[in-house]
């Protein structure tokens, strides 16, 4: 790392997260204008976007090579009152909460009190959504049966494809003009809607070009004032680049990075989309630029790394926009889930690992930043040395990169009906979600608390935490004479709650489609221009809605415990079990020991237990998969928790697997913390028993002590373990390499462990920024290990 990068990295690391009212004020000013009242909804959104980019502060940080900030300065995070309106109390909480805080100054509070809150109250999208959802949805939501991603952030969940590395926005404007010219107002009843949408996209293209030109102007000004001759040349060069991209297609490595970065800032300024945005297959996109310049002698590896490092820091300058309410608990992190993909296969199916892949791995290792997150795609065609190089980074214990199975991802996409080329251009984003990059909207709709639903099943539709009837009457389990009846009752409850969830999402989808189109994002994803249709309204080639199942490991152990202890072995009867759970096992040490230590558990390659995992998977799959959404696509499942397993655990009482009330559930498809006692190979065998290829992603967390990866043999074995899992169609695996002892020390003395990054679930985070309950959960997860 050279001096410049070190400085920029420090600046980014030390920047204070704060709330900026800049965007909120600009969007309010625009919405108050006469112009805003006269135009169609898509055009209004595009003009608002343009208004922001025309007026927002231009920020150029000292020494940086890639420019563009979403806020007025690094880590100054804008708000989106058009989507979710923070109250003064929310701002107070953000300012003062002990973790993942955002400073809010008096001026910002004043702006909220006097201008933003008065204007947006009753108008924000979140309020519209809650007005339109019915009581059964609200009851289930409040009971913690599911969460809803879109209630305060816009559907994003998409990744840039290769298109934009070969096109500028002027090219897109030509495409738009052609489509407008071809509209058939005589025969196409949607022609007007299409024209308004295309007009909006055209305005959004102008807006981003204008934004870059404002940067160019400022850079030119700075160049004139710059006393340092070298920096002066740099600034002139950067200004030239901003005059060229994103209006025109990039031709150099530097241009390509700057081009993408303007696009990124555009997407996360227009709205607050989930998973921010993501350049996707970065090694594939950048290799042609690098190769050309490297051969011409205009760019060497060192220079490329410096530019990439500067690029990395830009991601780190952009924390996730802060949420309010339930979502703050369920996913509280500065991370905004931009996941760089490396490796995999090319469009023709051949090995895609190239020189740029290894350069990027070096950058990831050296930068050691929270954002962007990184992953490798591993196909059977990729060389072992690619995995082994990655294993050496994993070994350093910052939880990145995570490891994905390209061949499984392609198969998953094909199973969903996608074209082979689109599938090969795909990957995973966010935590582990499968998508076709550049052609798909694959929104996550919310976490689905399978364990809670089973708790409700055990109580015949009543939530024992509140005494409220939220589910169906599926019978008194104490009267059931066979284990199959338990499963049957559960299946009915899952269907019931999936219905409620899907109905809710079909309503929310429409609210976004009608009120919050995203013309800028629509420019980027095919086939929005071609169809004259917004990204939020089914404009993408593929439109998938995912529901995320949570608690597979916990629920498998719960069902196994009932099957084993109550039915098959008759060691415990229902009354004893219910009393023990009601008492949170207080006074039931022997019984709890039976449940915890003498009952088969998921994660040990034990078919007796793993059978229940498969049953749960099939029940969830049948309730969700293939049901239509409102955008011409379908609902699908994936299995990932982010941090919701902590929230979901907190609303769930003691369970028949011996878990105490309100404790976290298992995460992803990983075994419950400490339930796996036969090492990583047995975990992998258990996890591979569900059919990953029928999901849109599963998450498996594997812990290792640093000592097991110490020598070459340890690294080679890790490579082979990954290969074995992927041979069994496993989708994803991530490794936490840190000792429980280190974590305990960090919890006690956070000041000494400011840089400690751990793998949470599908992403990494600073250990210090995690809530204490999640910290405890990770410590427990780590200390039970033998490996």
């Amino acid at each position, binding site marked *: 790392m050279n001096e410049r990068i070190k400085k920029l990295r420090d600046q980014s690391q030390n920047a204070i997260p704060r709330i900026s009212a800049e965007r909120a004020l600009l969007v309010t000013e625009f919405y108050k204008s006469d112009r805003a009242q006269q135009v169609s909804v898509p055009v209004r959104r595009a003009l608002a976007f343009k208004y922001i980019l025309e007026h927002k502060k231009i920020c150029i940080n000292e020494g940086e090579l890639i420019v563009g900030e979403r806020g007025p300065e690094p880590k100054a995070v804008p708000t989106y009152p058009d989507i979710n309106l923070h109250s003064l109390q929310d701002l107070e909480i953000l300012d003062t909460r002990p973790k993942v805080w955002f400073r809010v100054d008096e001026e910002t509070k004043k702006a909220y009190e006097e201008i933003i809150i008065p204007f947006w109250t009753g108008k924000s999208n979140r309020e519209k959504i809650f007005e339109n959802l019915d009581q059964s949805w609200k009851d289930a939501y409040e009971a913690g049966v599911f969460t809803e991603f879109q209630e305060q952030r816009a559907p994003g969940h998409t990744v840039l494809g290769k298109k934009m590395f070969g096109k500028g926005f002027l090219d897109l404007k030509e495409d738009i003009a052609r489509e407008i010219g071809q509209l058939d107002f005589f025969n196409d009843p949607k022609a007007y809607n299409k024209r308004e949408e295309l007009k909006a996209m055209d305005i959004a293209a102008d807006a981003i070009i204008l934004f870059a030109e404002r940067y160019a102007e400022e850079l030119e000004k700075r160049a004139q004032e710059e006393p340092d001759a070298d920096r002066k040349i740099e600034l002139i060069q950067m200004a030239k680049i901003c005059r060229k991209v994103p209006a025109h297609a990039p031709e150099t490595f530097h241009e390509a990075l700057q081009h993408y970065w303007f696009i990124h800032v555009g997407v996360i300024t227009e709205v607050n989309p989930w998973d921010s945005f993501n350049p996707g297959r970065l090694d594939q996109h950048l290799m042609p630029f690098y190769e050309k310049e490297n051969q011409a002698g205009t760019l060497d590896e060192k220079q490329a790394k410096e530019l990439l490092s500067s690029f990395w820091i830009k991601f780190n300058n952009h924390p996730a926009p802060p949420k309010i309410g339930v979502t703050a608990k369920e996913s509280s992190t500065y991370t905004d889930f931009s996941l760089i993909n490396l490796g995999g296969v090319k469009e023709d199916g051949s090995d895609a690992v190239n020189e740029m892949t290894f350069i990027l791995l070096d950058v990831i290792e050296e930068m050691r930043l929270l954002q962007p997150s990184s992953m490798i795609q591993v196909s059977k065609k990729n060389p072992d040395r690619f995995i082994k190089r990655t294993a050496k980074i994993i070994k350093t214990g910052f939880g990145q990169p995570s490891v994905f199975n390209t061949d499984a991802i392609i198969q998953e996409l094909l199973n969903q009906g996608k074209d082979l080329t689109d599938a090969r251009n795909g990957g995973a984003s966010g935590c582990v979600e499968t998508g076709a990059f550049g052609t798909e909207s694959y929104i996550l709709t919310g976490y689905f608390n399978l364990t809670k639903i089973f708790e409700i099943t055990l109580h015949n539709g009543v939530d024992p935490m509140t005494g409220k009837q939220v589910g169906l009457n599926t019978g008194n389990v104490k009267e059931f004479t066979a284990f199959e009846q338990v499963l049957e009752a559960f299946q009915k409850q899952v269907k019931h709650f999936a219905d409620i969830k899907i109905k809710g999402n079909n309503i929310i989808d429409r609210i976004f489609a009608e009120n919050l189109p995203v013309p800028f994002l629509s420019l980027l994803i095919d086939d929005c221009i071609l169809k004259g249709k917004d990204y939020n309204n089914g404009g993408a080639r593929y439109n998938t809605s995912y529901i995320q199942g949570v608690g597979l490991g916990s629920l498998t152990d719960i069902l196994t415990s009932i099957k084993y202890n109550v039915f098959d072995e008759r060691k415990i009867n229902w009354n004893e079990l219910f009393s023990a759970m009601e008492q949170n096992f207080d006074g039931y*040490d*022997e019984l*709890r*020991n039976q449940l*915890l*230590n003498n009952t088969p558990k998921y994660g040990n*390659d034990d078919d007796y237990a793993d059978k229940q995992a498969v049953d749960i998977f099939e029940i969830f799959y049948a309730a969700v998969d293939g049901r239509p959404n409102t955008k011409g696509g379908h609902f699908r499942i994936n299995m990932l928790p982010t941090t919701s397993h902590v929230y979901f655990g907190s609303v769930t009482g003691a369970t028949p697997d*011996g878990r*105490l009330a309100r404790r976290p559930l298992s995460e992803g498809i990983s075994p419950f913390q400490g339930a796996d006692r*036969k*090492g*990583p*190979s*047995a975990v992998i*065998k258990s996890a591979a028993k569900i059919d990953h290829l029928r999901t849109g992603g599963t998450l498996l967390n594997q812990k290792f002590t640093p000592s*097991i990866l110490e*020598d070459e*043999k*340890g690294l*080679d*074995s890790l490579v*082979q*373990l990954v*290969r*074995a899992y992927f*041979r*069994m169609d496993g989708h994803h695996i991530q490794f936490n390499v840190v000792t429980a002892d280190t974590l305990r020390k960090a919890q006690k003395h956070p000041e000494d462990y400011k840089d400690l990054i751990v793998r949470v679930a599908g992403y990494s985070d600073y250990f210090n920024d995690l809530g204490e309950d999640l910290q405890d959960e990770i410590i427990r997860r780590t200390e039970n290990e033998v*490996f």
Partner: protein
Amino acid sequence: MKGIIFDIKHYAIHDGPGIRQTVFMKGCPLGCWWCHNPESRAREPFSSQKTEKMDGRELQVTETIGKEYSVEELIQIIEKDQVFFEESGGGVTFSGGEPLLQFDFLLEVLHECKKRDIHTVVDTTGYVSQAKMERAAQYTDLFLYDLKHMDDALHRKYTGVGNELILDNLQLLDDLGKEIWVRYALIPGFNDQEENLLNMLAFLQKLKRQPKVSILPYHKIGSHKYHRFGLEYKMNGVEEPAKEYVDEVADLFSEAGYEVSVGG
């Protein structure tokens, strides 16, 4: 026929090539002072008290050390890890205890493994009759062979048996052309004297094939087990060897042309 097994370890990466499953068999004719699996010595299963900790609460429970398996049961468990064996060039390792003590059972399991093309390793003290060793060698791809001391009297003192049969068997396996990795547990003050090392080297140099040499530096990890199982612990005050010394010993063997690994 049943075998008595006290542990099965999956993802064992230091007990032979690749990712392995290590089956720990009960019973050992030796009684090495530094043994880190003292619960393996007695051939029959026995009960022991242990403390289960559940969120700060403690519960005394009885645990049985050692469990009977039929050949079929064990083979089923071994086969579960086939995918890892194939990906890594691994297989199954029989350790103990002294696995050859349960000779008939082991022989049948080894035979069944070879029928399934599973790579087999026997981790042995070498203290078994020559006839048995020769038969086991038929179905064993690799021997991990412990060399504890070259001096017969000291060997007898620290392990309870002399080393003559052990050295003869090593010679025998070499004559049979078997692949061998010699395992040398380096115990400070017991078998780390230069004279012993040189004698060991001299012996190895007489073999036709050059075995790999694994140096296993003494660690105290097993000491708590002596306490738990109520056994006499004779290693009080013995410290783990300095890394520099371990490296020196490793160099001695590498300079003599041996492939050396430390710790596995």
